[in-house]
C-alpha cells in the first residue's frame, strides 16, 4: 500500500484473515477493531469452540478447581468476525493472497496473520503414544482427559520431561496426593529454561515435596497391558517404573507445516519475522502483508544482539498481537517495533516462579537477593558482563528493577548490596545443556552466485 488513501481504504474495507484462533489471534483481532479496522475479519482455527487460555490447563484445571471448559479467553470487545473453525489451513499462496483450507476452501485476503502456535511434541513411538493413559497437555481436551485420569486415583503418574509444564503437573500430582515419578534427561528440572544452578533448586523442591525425581535418564519404552492401557515405563539404565498414567511433556513443535511451500522463512523455530511482526520470505526479505504473532513467531530482538528469539510465553503472544495489529494498519513510517523484555511465570510446589529477559542468553548467573534455601530469591543472569535476564522464586515484585537493568545493559554482576543480600553471592557459570538459543542446525541453504540470483532455500528437517 503506497499512499495514505489506500491505507485508509484498507482500514475501511480491506480483508484480514487470521490463521490460528487462540490467544495471539484473538488479541490481534480485538486490537484491529480497537484501532478502527472496519473491513472483513476472518478467523481460521482448527480447534472447535471459543478461544481459550492454556496456562490453567497445567494448573487450576488439573486440580479440578476450574473445569476444562472454564478457561475461555475473556472477550475484551466484539470483533465482528467470520469464524471458520474445525478445519486447519493447509497452504498459503502468496502469489494470489489466498489461504487454503484442508477441506478445499480458498480464503482470499489483503493482509493476514499467522498465529498457529505450537502443538505438544508427541511420544516418539506412535503405538505407545496411543495407549490409554498416555497424555500430552496442550489443548483443553488433553487437560480434561488428564484431569479425569488423575481423579480416577492412579497408583502412580509418570511425567516424562521436567520443563515448566512437566514440573507444574508433578506439583499438581503431589497436591492431589498422587505418587509421581518425573523422568528428565538433563541433570535437573527446568535446566533447559533456567540453567543448572536454578535447576538444582528446582530438584530440591521437587524431592522435598515427595516427587520421585530421576534425572539424567531417558525413557525408552512405554509398555501397555492386554487392554491397551499404559502400565510400565522402561528407562535406558535398565530400570522400570510402574504407573497408570504417563504425561509426555517434551516441549512443543511449531505449527508451520502448512507453510512449507509458502515461500516464507519457516523452520523448526517458527516463522521468522522482523521486530514489527512482518514475516520474512525465504530470502530474508520482509513481506508487507503477512504478519506473525505468538508462539509460532521468531523475532529478532535488538536487546539480544538482534538474534532471532522464539518464545512460548503468554505475555509475548499478547504483546506481539498488539504490535502486529498496529502495524497491519499503519504505513511504514508509523510502524512499531516489538521491543518489550520477555516475561514468563509458572506456579509449582507453592512457588511463584517468574522471569524477565531471556535466561538462555547468558553465560553466568548469580543470586542477588533473598535466600536460596528458603526458596525465595532473585537470580540475575549475565552475558559478557551485562545483565540479560533475572528469575525470581517467590520474589516477583522486584523484577521490574531487573527489567530496567536489562533495558539499560547494566553491568553484570549487579554491584551494590541490598538489605536482603544472600549469604553467597558469587556468579557461577549458567550451564545450559547444549546451545539453546543459538541455532540448532541449519534451516536454510544459500544457492546462486550472482547477487541478482542468490536465494535461500529451506532445508527439510527430519525429526
Amino acid at each position, binding site marked *: 500500500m503506497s499512499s495514505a488513501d489506500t491505507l485508509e481504504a484498507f482500514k475501511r474495507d480491506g480483508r484480514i484473515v487470521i490463521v490460528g484462533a487462540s490467544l495471539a489471534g484473538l488479541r490481534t483481532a480485538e486490537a484491529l477493531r480497537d484501532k478502527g479496522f472496519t473491513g472483513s475479519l476472518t478467523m481460521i482455527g482448527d480447534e472447535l469452540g471459543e478461544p481459550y487460555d492454556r496456562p490453567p490447563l497445567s494448573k487450576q484445571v488439573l486440580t479440578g478447581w476450574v473445569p476444562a471448559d472454564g478457561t475461555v479467553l475473556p472477550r475484551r470487545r466484539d470483533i465482528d468476525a467470520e469464524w471458520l473453525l474445525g478445519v486447519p489451513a493447509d497452504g498459503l499462496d502468496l502469489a494470489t493472497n489466498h489461504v487454503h483450507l484442508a477441506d478445499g476452501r480458498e480464503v482470499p485476503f489483503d493482509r493476514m496473520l499467522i498465529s498457529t502456535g505450537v502443538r505438544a511434541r508427541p511420544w516418539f513411538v506412535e503405538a505407545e503414544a496411543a495407549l490409554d493413559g498416555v497424555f500430552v497437555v496442550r489443548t483443553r481436551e488433553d487437560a480434561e482427559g488428564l484431569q479425569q485420569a488423575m481423579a480416577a486415583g492412579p497408583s502412580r503418574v509418570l511425567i516424562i520431561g521436567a520443563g515448566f509444564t512437566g514440573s507444574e503437573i508433578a506439583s499438581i500430582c503431589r497436591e492431589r496426593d498422587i505418587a509421581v515419578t518425573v523422568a528428565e534427561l538433563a541433570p535437573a528440572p527446568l535446566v533447559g529454561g533456567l540453567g543448572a544452578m536454578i535447576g538444582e533448586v528446582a530438584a530440591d523442591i521437587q524431592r522435598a515435596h515427595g516427587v520421585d525425581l530421576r534425572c539424567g535418564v531417558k525413557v525408552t519404552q512405554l509398555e501397555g497391558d492386554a487392554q491397551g492401557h499404559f502400565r510400565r515405563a522402561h528407562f535406558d539404565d535398565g530400570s522400570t517404573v510402574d504407573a497408570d498414567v504417563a504425561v509426555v511433556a517434551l516441549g512443543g513443535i511449531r505449527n508451520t507445516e502448512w507453510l512449507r511451500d509458502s515461500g516464507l522463512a519457516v523452520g523448526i523455530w517458527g516463522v521468522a519475522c522482523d521486530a514489527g511482526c512482518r514475516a520474512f520470505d525465504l530470502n530474508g526479505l520482509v513481506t508487507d502483508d503477512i504478519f506473525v504473532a505468538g508462539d509460532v513467531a521468531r523475532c529478532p530482538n535488538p536487546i539480544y544482539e538482534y538474534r532471532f528469539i522464539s518464545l512460548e510465553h503468554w505475555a509475548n503472544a499478547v504483546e506481539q498481537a498488539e504490535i502486529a495489529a498496529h502495524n497491519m494498519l499503519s504505513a511504514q513510517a508509523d510502524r512499531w517495533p516489538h521491543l518489550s523484555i520477555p516475561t514468563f511465570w509458572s506456579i509449582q510446589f507453592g512457588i511463584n516462579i517468574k522471569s524477565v529477559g531471556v535466561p538462555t542468553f547468558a553465560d553466568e548467573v548469580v543470586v*542477588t*537477593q*533473598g*535466600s536460596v534455601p*528458603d526458596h*525465595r530469591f*532473585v537470580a540475575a543472569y549475565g552475558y559478557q558482563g551485562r545483565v540479560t535476564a533475572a528469575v525470581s522464586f517467590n*520474589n516477583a*515484585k*522486584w523484577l*521490574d*528493577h531487573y527489567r*530496567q537493568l536489562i533495558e539499560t545493559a547494566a553491568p553484570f554482576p549487579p*554491584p*551494590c*548490596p*541490598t*538489605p*536482603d543480600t544472600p549469604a553467597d553471592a558469587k556468579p557461577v557459570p549458567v550451564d545450559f545443556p547444549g546451545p539453546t538459543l543459538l541455532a540448532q542446525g541449519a534451516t536454510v541453504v544459500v544457492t546462486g552466485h550472482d547477487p541478482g540470483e542468490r536465494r535461500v532455500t529451506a532445508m527439510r528437517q527430519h525429526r
Partner: protein
Amino acid sequence: MTTTEAPDLLHRILDYSSRSDPYPLYAELRETPVALQEDGSYVISTYREIAGILHNPHLSSDVRNLSRPMPGAEERATPSFINLDPPEHDRLRRLAMRHFGPPHTPGLVSGMAPDLTNIVSSLIDDFAGKEQIDIVDDFAYPFPVTVICHLLGVPREDEPRFRVWVNAIIDSINYDPKTDPKEKLDNGVQATKDLRQYLGGLLEQRHGHPGDDLLTRFANDDGPDGRMTDEEIISTANLLLIAGHETTVNLITNGMLTLLRHPQVLQRLRDEPDLVVPLVEELLRYEPPVHIIPWRAAYSDITVADTVIPKGSQIMLMLASGSRDPDRFGDPDRFDPDRQDNQHLGFGSGIHLCFGGPMARLETQIALTELVRRLEGPRLVADPPPYRPSPVLRGPIHLPIEQS
C-alpha cells in the same frame, strides 16, 4: 538532567497554605526529578523515577538505615512491616496476609460487601433532617473506622480514645525539627506508646480464644511461618488500624469533593453505577490520599536520573506528583474516569504495595455509589474546603454540603 537545590519549593509544598492545591507546585518540582535538599535528603517527583525507586532493591524502608537518624526513631517501638525490609518485611506481611486475602483467605474482602453497604446505608439514613452534612464527620470518617475496628477486633466504642493517639501520630510523621515545636514529636512518641499499650491489652484477652477478628487469628495462628510474637502482633495491628482508616477517609472525601466539582461525572455515576470502578482508580491518581512517602533510605549508593544518591540518604517520594506526571499520563490534570492504562501510584508499588488496597477500593466504591444515589442535589458549601494539617496524608478536615 541536573540536580538543583529546590529547598524553598519543598517548604512551600509542605506549608499549610498549599494544602488545598499543591499540584502547580508539584509541576514545578518535576522540573528537577531528583532534588537535593539543604539537609542532604532527596526529593523525587517524576513517575518513572518514583516507580524505579519503589522497585529498587537497593532501597530500605527501615529508618535505621538512614545516616542521619530520624528524630524520635529511637523511642518508637518495634517497627511494623511498612518500615521493615525483606526478609522480615516479607515474613510479617505473609503472616498478616494469611488472614486477609488470597491464597489462604480468598473472598474475605468481597464477602464484606453486604456489611459495608449496611454501614453506609445507615450512616446516610442519619443524614435525614440535617441542614448541612459534613461528609467527613458524618460519613467518611466513621465508615472506615467501623470497618477496620470490626476486622481487627477493636471495640468501636473505644474510638474516641484511639482517635487522639492516631491524630498525634499522624501529626508527627512529618515532624521538622527546624520549624516544629518539639512537643509535636513528643506527643507522637507518647501516643505510639499509648496505642501499643491499648492494643496489647486487647491482645491479652485473645490468646486461646476462638474468633474471627484479625487480632484473635494472629494470636492463635500456626502456619508454616510460625506465629507472630505479641510485639509483632501489636505493631501489625497498630499499622492496620491507622493505615486502615486514615487513608480511606481521604479517598472517600476527595471523591465526593471531586464529583461535586465535576457534576457531569456525578450524573454519569448515577446513571452508570459500574463507572465507579475506573472512577475510584482515577481518584487514586488525581486526588490520592497519600501524597508523599516521607522516607526511603539509600542502602547503597544508587543512581537515579543520572544523580548519584549516596548511601544512607533520606529519599522522599512525591507519589501524588508522579501520578500527575505528563510524561506518563496524557492530560494529567484532567479528572477522566475513562482513562486507560491508569497505573497510578496511589497505593505505592513494589513489595510495600498497599496491603489494604482491595478493601479500600471496595469501601470507596460502595461509599460513592450510595452517596451519589441517595443525596439529592448535593452542593458544596465551601470550595476549597478546609484541609487537615498533614501534607503526607492529605484531605479535607471537613466537607460540608447541602442538599436541595
